[in-house]
């Protein structure tokens, strides 16, 4: 029996099969429906008085700019990678489409996707420097790229007809041209809608979360198993594809482009639009782009003052609200919500401040599988310039139990963590994890094998909510590809739903339901620490490495922490490697202790034996006089 006959026989079964396709897509479906209802009347055959042809063209330019702004927003707003040469990518899209349609007589349906593809390729190459360069340095590199594209590449006679430029006819089938500006506007809006939906899909899957994590802290992203290299290049490539499409739209709109169309100033305008609108906020960025392009259309009497005022607005917006207008609105809403929550809690007589007692970490997750020796380092050394931070340290962590790592400040404890987790490169020695030499693996690969770590300064994406952090933590548990994520296929929707369920269960287990949608930065330090450990547990790790978990906790909370830490091996079967300064805590919870001094292991053994060791006492308290 074939599938279709089953469907025909039982319509309810067919509906049931359709349901996952529709689930989580109501917003998309609504948008698409609205688009198809609104767009046709816009064409001036239907409503000749609504818009003049020339108005349609200006609006279409605005739409192209909005698409370009979405492209830069993906890079700058989500991933935190600046591009001051984005006009170069727009130009690649426009020239590619122009060469194919104008010179080779191919239809737009071929030219525009080709433009997107070539621009994506160029953006991939542009992304390679971003693997080593950050902030201002990346700004300089991308600026130089845009400048060289404008001054040189776009002027090559073989490629672009030199200074004469390239025509971009709106060729549809054979020699038929889509001449009508209103129809072209409808097409532009459809393209923008498509990009918008892709952008939505990026944001609601692991791809968007990986981008956000990279923007906030690359080390944290790696610790959660995010392959930073891959996702940075993916962000550049996607952004390039968006930019190529936007550039092609822009070019087909005006019908002709040359090197001056995609100059340095266009790149700057895009940065301004994204930053003033509010980097990272899709709607605000699109609105800012449309406003920026269409504003002069309505106020022609301004005679150039609009640009001056616009520049002043930019400077003062940034000076006062680095998050842009959208960030400003979000901050206000957050304050309001926080105030209300406090009022509600007070009314209910709940405790608002950190309670002395920590929640249980009984988060539903996979049980650990490995037995025997989990981690073994031998002769691990790390050198920073002239400083030998770690000098041949060898430790062993057997499964089930808590191994403590103590030592005076500067002993190399955190460096050992970093070398084990792959956040710094060891100059000598090996790291064996689960019987495998992982010394050559990058941090995200080690995380994927079940090596979870916390950070002294809280390893969470602080701008994201508690729930989003739990989703981010499960990055490695989402097996779908980036392509599937862009399409938000039913299987992706299923995975996301189960991740979300697990995140909510974990939050409930911590008793943090009221903070579900609170940005982590608004929690107290102690609460952040709890969420961090919760996130690590949610990954189902084989080994948990905790770097000073009690730092910044009240004495009562630290005492409660001891109990909770003991739960990890005793009740949850986890293995812990612990750095702590709080000696009573260490002595209370650890099964075995290593003392690090000047980068090497000074002593090891059962806790009560180690603290009586003369060498340890000397290292901590100095020589007896």
């Amino acid at each position, binding site marked *: 029996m074939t599938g279709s006959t089953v469907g025909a026989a039982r319509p309810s079964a067919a509906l049931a099969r359709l349901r996952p396709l529709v689930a989580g897509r109501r917003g998309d479906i609504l948008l698409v429906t609205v688009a198809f209802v609104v767009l046709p009347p816009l064409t001036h055959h239907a409503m000749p008085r609504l818009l003049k042809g020339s108005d349609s063209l200006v609006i279409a330019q605005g739409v192209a700019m909005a698409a370009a702004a979405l492209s830069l927003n993906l890079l700058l707003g989500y991933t935190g990678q600046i591009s001051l040469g984005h006009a170069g990518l727009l130009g690649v899209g426009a020239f590619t489409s122009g060469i194919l349609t104008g010179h080779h007589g191919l239809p737009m349906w071929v030219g525009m996707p080709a433009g997107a593809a070539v621009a994506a390729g160029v953006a991939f190459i542009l992304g390679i*420097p971003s693997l080593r360069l950050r902030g201002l340095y990346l700004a300089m590199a991308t*600026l130089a790229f845009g400048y060289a594209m404008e001054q040189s590449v776009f002027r090559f006679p073989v490629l672009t007809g030199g200074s004469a430029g390239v025509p971009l006819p709106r060729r549809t089938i054979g020699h038929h041209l889509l001449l009508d500006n209103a129809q072209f506007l409808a097409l532009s809006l459809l393209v923008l809608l498509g990009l918008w939906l892709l952008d939505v899909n990026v944001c609601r899957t692991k791809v968007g979360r990986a981008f956000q994590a990279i923007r906030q802290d690359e080390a944290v992203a790696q610790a959660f198993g995010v392959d930073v290299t891959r996702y940075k290049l993916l962000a550049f490539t996607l952004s390039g594809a968006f930019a190529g499409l936007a550039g092609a739209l822009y070019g087909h709109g005006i019908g002709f482009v040359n090197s001056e169309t995609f100059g340095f100033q266009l790149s700057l305008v895009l940065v301004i639009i994204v930053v003033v609108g509010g980097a990272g906020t899709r709607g605000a960025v699109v609105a800012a782009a449309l406003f920026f392009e269409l504003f002069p259309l309505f106020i022609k009497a301004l005679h150039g003052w609009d640009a001056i005022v616009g*520049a*002043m607005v930019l400077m003062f917006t*940034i000076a006062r609200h680095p998050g842009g207008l959208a960030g400003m609105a979000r901050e206000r809403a957050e304050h309001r919500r926080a105030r209300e929550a406090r009022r509600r809690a007070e009314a209910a007589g709940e405790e608002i401040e950190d309670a002395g007692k920590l929640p249980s970490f009984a988060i539903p997750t996979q049980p650990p599988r490995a037995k025997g020796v989990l981690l073994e380092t031998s002769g691990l050394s790390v050198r920073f310039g002239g400083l030998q931070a770690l000098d041949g340290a060898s430790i062993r962590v057997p499964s089930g139990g808590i191994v403590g790592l103590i030592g005076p400040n500067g002993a190399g404890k955190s460096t050992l963590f970093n070398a084990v987790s792959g956040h710094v490169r060891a100059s000598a020695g090996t790291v064996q994890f689960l019987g495998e030499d992982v010394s050559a693996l990058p941090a995200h690969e080690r995380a994927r094998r079940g090596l979870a770590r916390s950070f002294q300064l809280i390893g969470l994406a602080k701008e994201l909510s508690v729930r989003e952090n739990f989703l981010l933590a499960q990055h490695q548990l989402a097996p779908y590809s980036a392509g599937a994520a862009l399409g938000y296929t039913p299987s992706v929707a299923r995975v996301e739903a189960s991740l979300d369920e697990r995140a909510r269960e974990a939050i409930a287990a911590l008793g943090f339901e009221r903070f579900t949608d609170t940005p982590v930065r608004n929690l107290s330090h102690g609460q952040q620490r709890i969420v961090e450990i919760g996130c690590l547990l949610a990954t189902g790790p084989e080994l948990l490495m905790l770097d000073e978990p009690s730092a910044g906790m009240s004495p009562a909370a630290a005492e409660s922490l001891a109990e909770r830490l003991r739960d990890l091996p005793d009740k949850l079967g986890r293995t812990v490697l612990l750095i702590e300064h709080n000696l009573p805590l260490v002595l209370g919870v650890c099964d075995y202790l290593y003392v690090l001094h000047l980068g090497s292991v000074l002593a090891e053994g059962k806790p009560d034996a180690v603290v009586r060791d003369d060498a340890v006492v000397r290292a901590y308290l100095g020589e007896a006089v």
Partner: protein
Amino acid sequence: MGRTVVVGIISGGIYGLMAVGLVLVYKGSRVLNFAQVEVGTLSLYAAWEVTTAHHMPWLAGAAAAVALAAVIGFLFERLVVRPMGDAPRMTVAVATVGLLTMMLALEARFFGPAPRLLRPPIAGLGVNIFGVFVSPSQWLSLGVVLVVGVGLAVFLRTTDFGLGVLAAAEDPTAVRLVGVRLSRVSTFVWVASTVLSAVAALLIEPTVGVIAPGALAGLFASGLAAALVGGLTSLSGAFVGGLVVGVAEAMVGRYIHSAAVPGVTALVVLVAILGVLLVRPAGLLGKAPA
């Protein structure tokens, strides 16, 4: 060959001035000033207004240009940079993009897109060196670059305030402890850099020939490459970088015809910037990062 070097040195010196402005702001505020060159361009319009429209001597025009640049630097530091305090440096850099667009908007509003001509400071063909005529304007340029470069170096190295400027970015607390006010350092670097921008614009204008909005974007790209080659934190490095970039551009421009490869100097700038950033981030003379 000799000819190319002479041409390269003349433009390289001006790139050096531009680079010093960028380096000063970077040292003082850890920010890259993307408006650096456009402030100079707007100042050129002031010079044009004074000399061409009001028929005053070139020097008066130059003074007007420098004064306008100083005012812009001062106001930007007071009204934008200072209120931003400890904001992420990238954000402050984007604010300078705002200043850049503001300069462009002002130029477009008050002077329009049509290019304008500025009289050269000194007319005449000049002296023949290695088969190239070095015009009086270019001699002036060389002289000014030397005087400004040496003067700035002496001022920064010998006065307490100057040392404070040099150390501000690395150790602000120490600077405050020796009695140098950081707010003054900040004002100084912004005003000095915009003034340097005006001076560089005045000097390069006879070579470019016209004033137009955004016409000196190439000067910014070359100046940035020079600053980077010099290590972004070294003042002498900025001058050396300027000469390196100037001579490299002249060489490539001489041996590769622009009809074959358009905008070949832009490619030199791209290679210089990417090369330094990726291969030797500390530049030629900058301190290697620890």
